[in-house]
């Protein structure tokens, strides 16, 4: 109990920090194939926090992530606090290089100035973090889907980035595997508390992982609600009553987010 109180206190402290050095998206406009995805959209994001961006499928969450990661340019608008930031990515698919071993895939993103032995040490440390010891010399084709995604998580942390962007990386995994992945992710995350922006349409994922949860509407996107969960991620159980309550709230917002479609 005291431990969680201490954690809460730490959370409060980092909340104060956040106010001082936030990341901001101001007056964002973006249209895609004639659809206005964002119209004067504003969002502030906290650093050293896991922010889950929750929204219905096709609401432009991935586009937002790509704009943040400077993969696609916005039509107009400004990003504040993102200059000079280095990003790493966890994609929906693991996107591992099939001809490289687990270790090779992680070394791929390491600084090329490092000596071979320190590269190896760093890669092995991350392999250990995602509990894939003994698999360093395996090729992706020899691993299960969940194991491959763990390699891609290890790769994202291996890269000395400031911000980790995650685009629905837990899609298609069963619930218990999802819970495990979130546990592993949170454990590594605690080591350096990087800024994480995690995009998903799945309420459970957001509840288990997010420190902050932002619910977006269908295009043109607006923020429907925003909430903070104090309890450290990775230590939450979906059975807890207050999380169940939050889940209901989020689901209500999400159902409102959906514009009713007329089918012929």
């Amino acid at each position: 109990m005291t431990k969680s109180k201490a954690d809460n206190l730490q959370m409060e402290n980092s909340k104060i920090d956040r106010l001082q050095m936030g990341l901001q998206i101001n007056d964002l406009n973006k249209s895609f194939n004639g659809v206005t995805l964002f119209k004067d959209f504003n969002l502030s994001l906290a650093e050293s926090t896991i922010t889950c961006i929750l929204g219905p499928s096709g609401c432009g969450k991935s586009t937002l992530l790509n704009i943040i990661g400077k993969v696609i340019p916005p039509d107009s608008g400004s990003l504040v606090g993102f200059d000079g930031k280095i990003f790493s990515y966890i994609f929906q698919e693991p996107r591992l290089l099939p001809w490289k071993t687990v270790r090779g895939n992680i070394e791929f993103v390491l600084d090329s100035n490092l000596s071979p032995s320190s590269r190896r040490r760093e890669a092995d440390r991350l392999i250990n973090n995602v509990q894939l010891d003994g698999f360093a010399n395996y090729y992706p084709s020899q691993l299960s889907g969940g194991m491959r995604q763990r390699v891609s998580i290890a790769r994202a942390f291996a890269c000395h980035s400031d911000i980790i962007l995650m685009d629905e990386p837990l899609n298609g995994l069963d619930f218990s595997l999802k819970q495990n992945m979130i546990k592993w992710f949170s454990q590594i995350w605690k080591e350096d508390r990087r800024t994480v922006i995690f995009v998903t349409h799945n309420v459970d994922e957001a509840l288990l992982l997010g420190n902050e949860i932002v619910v977006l509407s269908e295009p043109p996107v607006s923020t429907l609600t925003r909430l903070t969960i104090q309890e450290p991620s990775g230590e939450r159980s979906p059975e807890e009553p207050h999380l169940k309550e939050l889940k209901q709230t989020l689901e209500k917002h999400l159902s409102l987010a959906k514009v009713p479609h007329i089918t012929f």
Partner: protein
Amino acid sequence: MKISFTKKHYISLASIVVMLALWQAAASWFGSDLIVPQPWDTLLAVGKLIGDVGFMKVVGATVVRGLTGFVISAVLGMLVGIWAGLRPNFNTFISPFVVTIRSVPVISLILLALIWFNPNIVPIFIAMLTMFPFIATNVADGIKSVDPNLIQMAKFYRADKRKILSEVYIPAIMPFIISGASSAMGIGWRAIIIGEVLSQPTYGIGTKMQIAQTYLNVEAVIAWTLIAILISSIFEKTIRLYEKRVLKWRAQ
């Protein structure tokens, strides 16, 4: 696994036995060494040729020509193939060249080469032009088939162009390079020997065949043919071994 391997072996062996039997039947039917020599006599002739003092010089000359042609066409083919795979405009520009080279009858190339080059170069030139289109086309197809998601991933992680080429593109097209090299080699050896028959360099399997043919020495023509088949299959086997080693990342 082991059982099917042995079974496969037996079937291959049976196939060779049938081939030899057909040959033997043909030899008995014609009853003349001037038309179809006896298989056993021919195999003895192969042994005798291999034992000859000048054998290594002859075979060595042909092999060196083959490898030279192969290396030149592989380097050119990879450069052209990679560029064509990356740049659609260059692909459109270069396609007519590759198609033309591939459609020109080998004999036309030889006749022209005989006019332009000295006899030692002709077979290399022929080999190069016959192998080049296979490698260039395969490499270009390989580059086009590279998963764009992997390229995007590498760019996201700030890999520079050189790193993307050497650690993403090249390994991705290895299977295509190897299958291109394999078909190129298959056709290349035949082209080299035709080139040698017609250009008559001092040393070469084709030169020896041409001399044997002039003296109606059918046995020697077939014996040299068997040697050419042997060389070609040694190279094919080497490529397959290399393939196994390089592509061990592929799912079994």
